[in-house]
């Protein structure tokens, strides 16, 4: 395999790469996750990685911190080939990673998390010196200008705060190694609100002053915005290396999916006016985090809910799904009252829910794709009380094909699928039921690649067309506007605005922003 990076004239070409990956191959049962991957990272640059779900991005990064052992190929750090034994070893050569799934210990302090395993002066004579710990951690937090208190307990932080802490933790590498570190960021933005993304980018730009960064995201515009160079991955290999200055999102999209992007991203033209009558009517819904909320959804309608962190929109969703013990209020589904005390009851009434915390709440990661998919409506594959294996496999095959889920087999443990593919399974779980009347989507496209996203949008359109009501919490305002017939805006647990968003006549984002903050 050629040991020089793909052609692309570039200013910093002269400087020797900090990190070079040569012909890396990694096979998982049924999947070739990495297939002769070749790329390099140069000093003080931000390298963007894009690729479909399952393209091998996470696997690559994991191999770079010794968490996945490549079957063949080599990793060269500052000219020396290394066989990384694990995170600690990778750290010792200056490579650190912020994981796609956050990895901080919840029940200890921020300072401990940042210095975990490398307390250095924080521990003297075997005894923790808390003030020193705080000081040392503060040094790292200052690097990224984070206001988080090093003494705070980690599980008391917001998601965004925790992410800052992770970056700070990675930066602690500097003191540990003589060299500038290489920081790997796996989809750091997928769960962030826009303004949080801005802060993160600010951090990344600072980082570039003292380190090299590898940045994975499915939001092409972000990648273009922050990267100096972008590698496009497909099926475990680099299919292109591009200069952000020379391309735009659509070109990337093309490179990415390898085919013309069909129709418009959001399938706007598929938006039909909701014909049906009121499907869900909510009167004075009262629960922790949102008080006296009232609204209606008609069947075939997509109702977007916009709002910032803590606006109470997530609590609203969970309450409607019976997952918010103590929720009160008059909720009618097709005129019949809906139990608010039991998810079970909600499901039986024809409600579906896709939670945002996919890994801990969406899937049972050690159970099979099949089991996860048929989990909610296992009745549909039962003959009498018994599960009909054949019927179940047919069902799964159908949906795996329909949503293009990349999995070796239905027996594969879902935890081993790429994030995006896990999400598709969760969606399928609800779609299998004919009786689905209301689908509650909490950040359904989080972590999905552009292709998958637009497939999901298509599915949402289809669902709506088929008369199902959809309650949609979006990653981005843009998404909410594009997909919804109406958009509710929530603030501090109350509805502050409700705008119509008919095809063609989408409201002005600015108006919504104002209502949100």
């Amino acid at each position, binding site marked *: 395999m050629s040991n020089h990076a793909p052609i692309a004239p570039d200013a910093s070409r002269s400087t020797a790469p900090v990190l070079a990956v040569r012909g890396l191959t990694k096979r998982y049962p049924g999947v070739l996750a990495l297939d002769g991957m070749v790329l390099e990272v140069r000093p003080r640059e931000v390298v963007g990685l894009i690729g479909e779900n399952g393209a091998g991005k996470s696997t690559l990064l994991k191999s770079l911190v010794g968490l996945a052992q490549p079957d063949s190929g080599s990793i060269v750090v500052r000219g020396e080939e290394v066989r990384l034994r694990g995170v*600690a070893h990778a750290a010792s050569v200056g490579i650190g990673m912020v994981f*796609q799934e956050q990895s*901080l210990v*919840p029940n200890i302090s921020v300072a401990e998390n940042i210095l975990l395993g490398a307390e250095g002066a924080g521990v003297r004579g075997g005894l923790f010196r808390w003030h020193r710990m705080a000081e040392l951690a503060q040094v790292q937090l200052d690097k990224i200008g984070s206001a988080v208190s090093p003494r705070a307990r980690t599980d008391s932080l917001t998601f965004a705060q925790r992410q800052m802490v992770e970056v700070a933790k990675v930066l602690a590498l500097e003191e540990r190694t003589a060299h500038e570190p290489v920081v790997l960021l796996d989809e750091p933005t997928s769960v962030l609100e826009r303004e949080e993304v801005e802060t993160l980018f600010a951090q990344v730009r600072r980082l570039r002053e003292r380190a090299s960064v590898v940045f994975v995201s499915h939001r092409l515009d972000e990648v273009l915005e922050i990267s100096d160079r972008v590698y496009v991955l497909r099926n475990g290999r680099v299919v292109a290396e591009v200069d952000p200055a020379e391309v735009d999102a659509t070109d990337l999209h093309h490179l990415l999916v390898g085919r013309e992007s069909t129709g418009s991203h959001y399938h706007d033209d598929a938006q039909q006016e909701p014909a049906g009558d009121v499907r869900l009517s909510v009167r004075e819904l009262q629960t922790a985090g949102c008080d006296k909320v009232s609204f209606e959804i008609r069947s075939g309608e997509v109702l977007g809910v916009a709002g910032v962190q803590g606006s109470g929109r997530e609590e609203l969703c969970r309450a409607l799904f019976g997952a918010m*013990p103590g929720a009160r209020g008059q909720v009618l589904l097709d005129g019949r009252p809906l139990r608010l005390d039991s998810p079970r009851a909600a499901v039986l009434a024809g409600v579906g829910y896709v939670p945002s915390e996919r890994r801990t709440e969406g899937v049972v*990661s050690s159970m099979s794709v099949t089991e996860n998919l048929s989990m909610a409506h296992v009745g549909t594959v039962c003959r009498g009380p018994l599960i009909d294996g054949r019927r179940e496999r047919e069902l799964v095959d159908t949906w795996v094909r329909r949503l293009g889920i990349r999995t070796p087999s239905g027996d594969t443990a879902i935890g081993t699928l790429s994030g995006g593919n896990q999400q598709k399974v969760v969606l399928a779980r609800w779609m299998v039921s004919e009786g689905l009347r209301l689908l509650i989507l909490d950040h359904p496209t989080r972590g999905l690649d552009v292709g998958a996203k637009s497939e999901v949008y298509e599915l949402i359109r289809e669902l709506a067309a088929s008369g199902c009501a959809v309650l949609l919490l979006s990653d981005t305002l843009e998404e909410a506007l594009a997909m919804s017939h109406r958009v509710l805006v929530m603030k501090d647990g109350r509805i502050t605005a409700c705008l119509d968003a008919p095809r063609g006549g989408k409201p002005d984002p600015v108006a919504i922003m104002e209502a949100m903050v």
Partner: protein
Amino acid sequence: MAGDTTPHAPTRSLEPAPLADAPAPGAGGGNGDAPGTTSGRARATRSADVVQTRASLIALAVLVVVFAAISPQFRTVGNLQQIIDAAAVLAVLATGITFVLLLGAIDLSLPGVIGACAMTVSLLVANSRNTQDLGLLGIGLTILLGAGFGLLSGVLSTRLRIPTFMTTLGMSAIGLGIATILFAGVRPVVLDEGLGAWAAHRIGGFTVMSLLAVAAVALGWAIQRWTRIGRYAAAIGGAEDIVLLSGVPVARYKTLAFGVAGAFYGLGAVMLTARLGSGVVEAGAGTDFAAITAAVIGGTLLSGGRGGVLQSMIGVLALTVLANGLILTGVSPYVQQAVQGVIVVLAVAVATWPVRRRLGVVK
């Protein structure tokens, strides 16, 4: 496998908790104060700790009040001393087992370890069986032996990757075997003055033993709060795989935690022997469940990462008060056991009831 880590899963529940502004429990890993900005659900998780601790405190308070109301003897200073003395051994054992429970592991080795240590110490200090008279040295050696047992449990669990339930259960059998061999049919009576004094001699109304116990608990608390063994134990219990990701030698610190626990069991065995006046093989019978129950009632969860030495002490006191109070209030011995069981559940349930929904997943 990094992709599968579930950092906040253990402490996730569905509902924001008004309770969140309550301070984190002292030993619960909350060194210090929470920042202003906190997300609803994250807050609920932390307050679960507070809830647990508060619940057990209330339970203890309720027990004390009720018994004090019913029985005049319960209110006496003498009985307070008696309760403290009675709690001494359990307190030391519970302190030890807390380190194991923090890991999210379990330890059933107490009966064996205590049996072996009890026989050892009674044969090392001046006794009726042999001419040994090592005094304090003998006690020290015994505590080391306890630590040895703990380390062995730890090594077996981490190196062979066996559930601690099994390794410690086996270790218990091994310990009892050793104890039985040492016993050899003749029970060694302790003649050592110093050791005898632990149980008999009183300072300010409290036996030497109780004071030793208090010191031991304090030590245990310090270990938990200020040493890697303690802090890592909590972290490992919180999210073992992440700690591993951070390059901490998890296996080593797990093993060490077991070692610390073992040392406390050793001390507990010495105290029991001092109290019984001779080496008794079954001295540790039932202590495993007693210690675990105490810890759990106190809010040190079996799932790991939550609670701590101080919380466990609440449980120890609750159990001791209960046993003591039931006798003093003249409950018939035939139903005492049953009553005790019901009260334990009721106490925890009632104390938890108003906030049960904030507790999220309870195993």
